[in-house]
């Protein structure tokens, strides 16, 4: 499944709805569906906000693929990229009361693998794998 969406907040719900349909069609259990839904929400929200910076002329491209072993999700934006190691740990005591910065923690917590890479032609490509 491939979805291309404009960089606006409403795209997060659209992407999550598509991911949920994909996961249900793949016959996944409820916990897996929740994990995929949340990971797609968080990665698309990051792509819209931090990657494309709400520039609606820039798209967010989402792809979902299944194999007998796993589900692979890719989310690509057209921003300038970032280094995940630069994001402060939201569970550190001094960051607990910050309003933002928990999306990557959720992606890492609910997916088995999460990788960030520079996409061919620019932008950031997030690849996430959830094993069945």
């Amino acid at each position, binding site marked *: 499944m491939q979805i291309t969406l404009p960089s606006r907040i409403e795209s997060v*719900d659209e992407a999550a709805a598509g991911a949920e349909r994909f996961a249900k069609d793949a016959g996944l259990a409820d916990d897996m569906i929740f994990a995929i839904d949340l990971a797609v*929400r*968080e990665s698309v929200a990051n792509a819209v906000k931090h990657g494309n910076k709400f520039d609606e002329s820039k798209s967010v491209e989402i792809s979902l693929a299944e194999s007998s072993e796993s589900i692979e999700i890719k989310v690509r934006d057209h921003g300038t990229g970032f280094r995940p190691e630069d994001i402060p740990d939201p569970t550190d005591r001094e960051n607990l009361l910050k309003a933002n910065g928990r*999306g990557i*923690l959720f992606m890492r917590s609910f997916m088995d693998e999460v990788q960030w890479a520079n996409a061919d032609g620019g932008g950031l490509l997030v690849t996430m794998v959830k094993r069945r």
Partner: protein
Amino acid sequence: MADITITERQAGDVTILDLDGKVTIGEGSVALRGAIRRVLGEGKTKLLLNLGHVGYIDSSGIGELVSSFTAVNKEGGTLKLLNLTEKIQDLLAITKLLTVFDVYENEADALASF
């Protein structure tokens, strides 16, 4: 249909906000922020958020719970949580926010704690 419905009721000097729906980026988070601002503006500073009918929350929604907590504290008040679903409990545990929020499973116990 709206992502979330927030209903206010009063139990003595405690204001209970019953949330029903999704607290996610966009409408859900904005609605919660608006409700907290409104009740604080009315001078109500003892707040209990009933999350028993929140079917879904993301990092933005969790962030809005934290912002609500700090906004109420700044006014000298108290914000507590009631009826966490299993999923919300999981997310608050992952983020270590269970160490921050005062959480109750029973409304009477929650009200007695203020």
